[in-house]
């Protein structure tokens, strides 16, 4: 049995000042095995983030279901932890306070929350920055804190919503590499949303390609690159082939996006 089972999931938003519901995700089905790293890629508006929020229990579905370990998701739960874009750290708390935050919210009792938080801060390489505040850190460091906060609560499933989306290309590559190193330790089931094709291929065991209007799964591509993944793989022919295939898969959406960026 798959650890995450998404069955015919449809999610609708009610538009303000309108009775017409907007369909963000349309009849999506997806199975994810325990320990699998699945990336979801698609242009903006394809419902990829909405799908992730539904798995987190932060968005309700109109029909269909998501079950994790056989339990239907309706609320956030300690079996899942989410890594957001960088703006989600509490700015008045130190790094230590932020990593402790998730543990506090879950009333963590298994061991001392402060000691535990310190351990995960060391794990993401920020041991010397425990007392710093988010505004004193770089974007990459802030995302390490975000990752430590999610891992500290020891979830079964790690949900990541474009966690490196606000970072520059170099930092992004380094962070992807670091994330995999951390992930390799206990290989938690991971669902990672991105709009970056290279990132999707580099991180994922499988890449789910989503299309828009309404948001649906277009195809799922198995990535047969060996683990641990290395930066050198980015230049391999195999990687280039995956990159090309994904570009084609995203096809029209990408072309539309380019036209928008060029027009702007």
């Amino acid at each position, binding site marked *: 049995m798959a650890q995450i089972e998404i069955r015919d999931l449809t999610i609708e938003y009610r538009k303000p000042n309108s009775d017409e519901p907007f369909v963000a995700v349309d009849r999506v089905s997806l199975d994810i095995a325990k320990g699998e790293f699945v990336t979801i890629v698609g242009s903006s508006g394809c419902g990829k983030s909405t799908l992730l929020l539904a798995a987190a229990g932060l968005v309700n579905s109109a029909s269909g279901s998501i079950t994790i370990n056989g339990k239907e998701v309706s609320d956030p739960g300690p079996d899942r932890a989410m890594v957001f874009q960088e703006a989600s750290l509490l700015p008045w708390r130190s790094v230590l306070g932020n990593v402790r935050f998730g543990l506090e919210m879950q009333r963590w009792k298994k061991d001392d929350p402060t000691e535990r938080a310190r351990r995960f801060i060391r794990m993401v390489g920020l041991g010397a920055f425990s007392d710093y505040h988010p*505004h004193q850190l770089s974007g990459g460091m802030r995302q390490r804190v975000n990752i430590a906060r999610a891992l500290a609560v020891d979830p079964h499933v790690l949900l990541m919503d474009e966690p490196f989306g606000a970072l520059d290309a170099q930092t992004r590559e380094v962070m992807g590499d670091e994330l995999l190193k951390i992930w390799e330790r206990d290989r938690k089931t991971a669902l990672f949303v991105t709009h970056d094709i290279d990132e999707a291929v580099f991180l994922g065991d499988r890449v789910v390609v989503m299309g828009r209007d309404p948001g649906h799964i277009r195809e799922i591509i198995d990535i047969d690159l060996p683990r641990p993944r290395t930066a050198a793989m980015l230049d391999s022919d195999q990687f280039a082939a995956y990159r090309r295939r994904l570009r084609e898969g995203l096809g029209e959406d990408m072309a539309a996006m380019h036209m928008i960026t060029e027009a702007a």
Partner: protein
Amino acid sequence: MMTELYRRHEALVLGTLSLLTIGILWQAVVSAGLINPFFISTPGAVFKEMGVQFADGTLVENILASLHSFVLALALAAGVGIGLGVLAGWFPDAEAALEPFIWFKYSAPTIAFYPLFVAWLGYGTPTIVAIAFLFALTPIYANTLSGIKNVDRDLVRAAHSFGARPLDIFLRVALPGSVPIVVAGLRLGVGRALTGVVVAELFGASAGLGYSIAYHAQLLQTTKMMVSILVIILLGVVLTQMLSWLEKKTDSWRVP
């Protein structure tokens, strides 16, 4: 070296210079016989009178009387303003219910209530405190309300994702996130509470800086009036600076 020092303290230097210029002009127009000192006194006379009033204890007595009313009014305004602000920020129904009163407070001059308070509380400290309380209440309430109400949605969502309950969101996200803007409201409240105290004292009091101004105004003693006016200005600056300092301290985590 000097230019470097100047550049760093440019605002301070220029501010001091312009104050000194006013002082010198003030003295000069009187010395040159352009304006009768009866109307504006002179800096020298004011400082001398300040020394006299300090020595005989009347200045300290007046400052303490005004400060007493000020502290009571500000404490009340802070308690009620922050309390109601939190309530209205968290419960939209409470905000809607309080809305008309805030509306009245913004549109109507608070001092119009003065005769009513005199009828209820008589002349003296209770009425002064009540007026100053009303003066200070609005900014403290309004800032607290907007701080709680405009809690960062991204942070709320992150907290929810870790299973936060409503009370967690309130205590760990909304409340700490509002501290800087609440302190900013208190800083505004300080200035307005002081204004309220002085204005109310002008109309009816037996001690205090505002009372001293009104008293000496009736006797046409310009120099003695000027002493109280200067002290009020100084008091206002010192109190507001204290709150600005507190604001900076509590605001240190915000992105500059």
